[in-house]
């Protein structure tokens, strides 16, 4: 029997599962916690199966038989394959962690929203139609707003409200950009738009681009549009914080890059990206250093890393984009591990402040170990994956003769080292006073363990990922090739 896998599954299956879960909840709670795991495992299998094929010739899936440029297409090229596989694997690990972490709240709601997040994120990455992009952006956003407020404390509601307010601005601007775009090119298919962009007057093109930059930049945590991010990351439940940092923002950055690279010409915005990316990086790292709460610190650190990714994209060369993708992958893995361990540290100690976490490393040795590993990895130390990511980025920057940029990036790395290592030091500092000796769930440890192994393996043998990101980077850069296979309907 030949298994007929198709990229549609990435969207359809979690979507279907999402709406099925409340029904299953009536039957048994156990089922509710297990089904998402099965779904994500299945999606991972699909992703890995389709992987080689996507790298060979991109799979273009036509929805409902309407050929492009009228219908919606899903484009599963190397870039999409890489990102989607990353998302499904991270999603699976998050499920593993959530299995025993989320125990109090109504489970169906959590997992349903989680499935929606997965469906939305993969949808953003797979789609070849710009309005479809908007729709998936919204799906992801609504699920995200709700999940931010999931824990029933007022801080969560406050964070969710800020996220919602700014996020709505994001959707408004993106929609406005689409409206003006449609008015000028008359089509919604991204490949088709790319073909017709040449006829649009420059001023209008720039307006549309700016609207996209601001709109998608809000989701991609560009400075100064990222005010919502620290609150949302720190107030959401820890696994969701990991999903935000590891999945959602990556999809948003992808969307921004797809628009900038494919619909517009990169050279216009590359300088802007490099500069704003650096500012994002610096402000975020500096703010992170003064944080008292551990999850908020991680949030700022994430923003900083995204700034780095934007800089890498902005460099515009094949190596630069490959570095950006490598950074995204490395960051997703490590940040997830950090959020997981921070989540346990906060949960078992009952304190959110770093100063109150003293000695937790001795109480919970494995959790402390994973946090320390994550801290070392994210600073960019060998032999972890973060080192290679940063190295590729610096090499690309050097090739473009941006020595000052290199200095700034390394300066922020030093700041990062200080605040992360301070926490690591505190973990082993004194004896922990409060009595709290519940055991850490095995699934959580397993999840963190998997991530740690991945980052170590890639750190020692980066070729695995390096070989995958180069063709993906090529796809983003090579507009002509994309147009060719995305427009098979023509």
């Amino acid at each position, binding site marked *: 029997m030949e298994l007929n896998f198709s990229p549609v599954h990435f969207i359809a299956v979690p979507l279907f599962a999402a709406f099925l879960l409340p029904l299953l909840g009536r039957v048994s709670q156990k089922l509710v916690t297990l089904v998402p795991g099965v779904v994500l495992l299945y999606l991972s299998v699909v992703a890995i199966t389709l992987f080689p094929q996507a790298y060979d010739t991109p799979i273009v899936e036509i929805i409902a038989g309407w050929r492009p440029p009228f219908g919606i297409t899903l484009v599963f090229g190397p870039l999409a394959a890489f990102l989607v596989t990353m998302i499904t694997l991270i999603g699976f690990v998050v499920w593993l962690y959530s299995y025993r972490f989320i125990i109090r709240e109504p489970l169906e709601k959590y997992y349903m929203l989680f499935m929606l997040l997965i469906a939305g994120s993969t949808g953003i990455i797979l789609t070849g139609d710009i309005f479809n992009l908007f729709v998936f952006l919204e799906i992801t956003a609504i699920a995200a707003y709700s999940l931010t407020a999931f824990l029933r404390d007022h801080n969560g509601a406050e964070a969710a409200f800020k996220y919602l307010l700014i996020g709505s601005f994001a959707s408004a601007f993106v929609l406005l950009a689409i409206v003006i775009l449609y008015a000028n090119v008359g089509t919604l298919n991204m490949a088709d738009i790319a073909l017709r962009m040449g006829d649009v007057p420059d001023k209008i093109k720039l307006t549309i681009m700016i609207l996209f930059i601001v709109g998608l930049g809000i989701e991609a945590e560009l400075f100064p*549009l990222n*005010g919502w991010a620290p609150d949302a990351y720190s107030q959401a439940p820890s696994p969701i914080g990991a999903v935000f940092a590891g999945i959602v923002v990556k999809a948003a950055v992808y969307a921004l890059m797809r628009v900038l690279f494919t619909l517009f010409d990169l050279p216009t915005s590359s300088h802007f990206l490099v500069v704003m990316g650096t500012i994002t990086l610096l402000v975020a790292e500096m*703010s992170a250093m003064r944080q008292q709460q551990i999850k908020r610190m991680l949030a700022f650190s994430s923003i900083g890393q995204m700034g780095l990714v934007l800089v890498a994209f902005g460099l515009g060369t094949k190596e630069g984009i490959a570095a950006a993708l490598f950074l995204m992958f490395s960051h997703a893995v490590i940040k997830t591990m950090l959020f997981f361990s921070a989540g346990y540290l906060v949960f078992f100690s009952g304190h959110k402040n770093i100063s109150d976490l003293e000695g937790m490393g001795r109480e919970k040795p494995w959790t402390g170990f994973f946090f320390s590993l994550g801290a070392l990895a994210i600073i960019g130390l060998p032999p972890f994956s973060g080192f290679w990511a940063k190295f590729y980025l610096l090499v690309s920057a*050097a090739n473009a003769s941006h020595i000052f940029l290199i200095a700034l990036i390394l300066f922020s790395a030093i700041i990062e080292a200080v605040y992360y290592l301070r926490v690591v030091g505190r973990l082993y500092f004194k004896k922990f006073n409060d009595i709290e000796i519940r055991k850490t769930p095995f699934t959580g440890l397993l999840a963190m363990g998997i991530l740690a192994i991945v980052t170590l393996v890639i750190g020692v043998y980066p070729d695995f990922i390096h070989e995958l990101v180069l063709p993906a980077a090529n796809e983003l850069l090579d507009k002509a090739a994309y147009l060719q296979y995305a427009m098979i309907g023509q």
Partner: protein
Amino acid sequence: MDQLLNIPAILAIAFAGSILVFITHSVFPKLRTAIILIFTILPAYLVWQLPADSGLVHFTLGGFDLSWGTNAYSRLFSLLIAGIGVLATIYSISFMKKRSRLGFFYLAFLTTISAMYGIVFSQDLLSLFFFWEIMTWASFLLVIYYSFEDQKAGIRYFVFSAIGAYSLLTAIVYLYSFTGDLSLAATFKVIPELDTTQITFITILFLLGFGVKSALMPVHVWAPDAYRSAPSPFTALFSGVLSKMGVFGMGLVLFKFMGGLEQGHIIREILAWLGGITALLATFYAIFQTDAKKLLAYSSIAQLGYITIGLAVGTPMSVMAAIFLALMHGIFKSMLFMGIGSVFLQTGSLDLNELTGLIRRMPLSFVTVLMGIITVAGVPPLGGFVGKWLLYESLITSEHYFLVAVTFISSTAAFLYLYRLIFSIFLGQEEKEFDHIKEVPWPMWVPMLILASLTMLTGLMPGLFFEPIAEAMKFLGFQQVNWEMSVLFNTWGNQIDLLAMSTSIFSVFLLGLAFITWKNYKTTRYVTTKDIHTSGEIPTENENLTYAVDFYRPFERAAAPVFKYKVTHFYESFAENAEHLFDLLRHVYTGNAQTYALYVVIFLVLLIVFSGWIFGIQI
């Protein structure tokens, strides 16, 4: 081919050892010692067996071409790592016996050693940096191991190391953008072809990077606290070997990178002066210390200053002096830290104002520290003399007279702190509270005595070291350097026969000792510490009244005005101001949802209004 696989094997075994210890530590504690020993001695043995000039092991990783191999220069340092590494490990097994979290300790300890092997065997810049960073974080973990006040020391260490490491990284990627080839061989070829500003830029970055590890002033501030905080067995390794990695790098930079370049002259002069200042100031700081480990730390910084002078001056004799001093420092500093560590283990204190009169209780440690002191002071018949002699000789012949004066002053001043060290701890009256102190177990004093005998050996037959050093220097580009087993030459044709000299000194010393003892035997009496004169004040039990307390107080008071301005203050105020700035910056995130929305709209408006300037097309 068989030979070529040795190096990856060494590294694999060494790293595997550290991971293995960590994993099996909680499960099979009894196995732990065995594993540690096997995985330390085996790589050391293999290193010993390596030929001086093996070929290169090439492989590709992550799209870069990497290569590992040895040359005479690397081999020298690898032997140092192997030797001191094994001895320190054996010492640590006994020292750390009753401590907690040993898995973590040995993970970091063995990883540091493995990383150091990696550094010396790297023949390309990326591998060098890769292992350099691993070494940095592994040693960081050990600095914060005890973690009482040590956090600050650890962070400070890491920040300075990071500054150095990132300077290295900047230089590496910058070079790579020119050459497209990361191997050292290619780098050696390319550098002469760059223009002066580029070469200066790269050299300064490299020297900064390696200088931090060598605790050169003004980037030395991490060293005293870091050496103090780390557990003594590791400090032996830290000060003895890790700092030599910086020396290793500096040698590469000064001689292989910059070779015979004219442009290098000014940089070398500045470096020599920095070395001199380091030596001088560090010696004085050492005199003021009351903590034994910190005293030794400053002493290390001073010694590294001498080594830097030697490297910077650049004549064949000075470089030989520098490398010889480097090896000697590796030996005697580890020895000293081990000795002091033994005292700490038995008494629980490192405070020179507290310790006293341990000579009868810990005779072996006494001998160790005594030999160490004599070597540091540069007095014959021990090895330090040879190094100092060569250094002075080379400075005089290259007409750096002022540096001779600086070196001489600091060497002489070194007597002050060296004497204090041994007097405070071992000599002087005995205190009751130390009555129960015993000597340390054999896994600790055997390495110490081995090292002590090495210092004696090199004092009598320095030729043993001269041979590999000369080979190493050939790699660095120097001509054949003259040496002989037991004889020191100077440029005017005179020579010292060390064996004869040492024998004569030794016999004179013994005769003198015998004479004094015989003369005063009948008139000696034992005094307790309470047998003193007081002016109306009655001393209490807890005051330490031994002779050595506050030894150099008057000296300190006299020199205090000069030493008010420490570089540390500068760094600390810089860090404080930076944190204030960051605090201001983070107030951007006001927490008010509407403000954030306003940011968005303002940003949009600004982008549109200034679109011409930002994007090139004005709306």
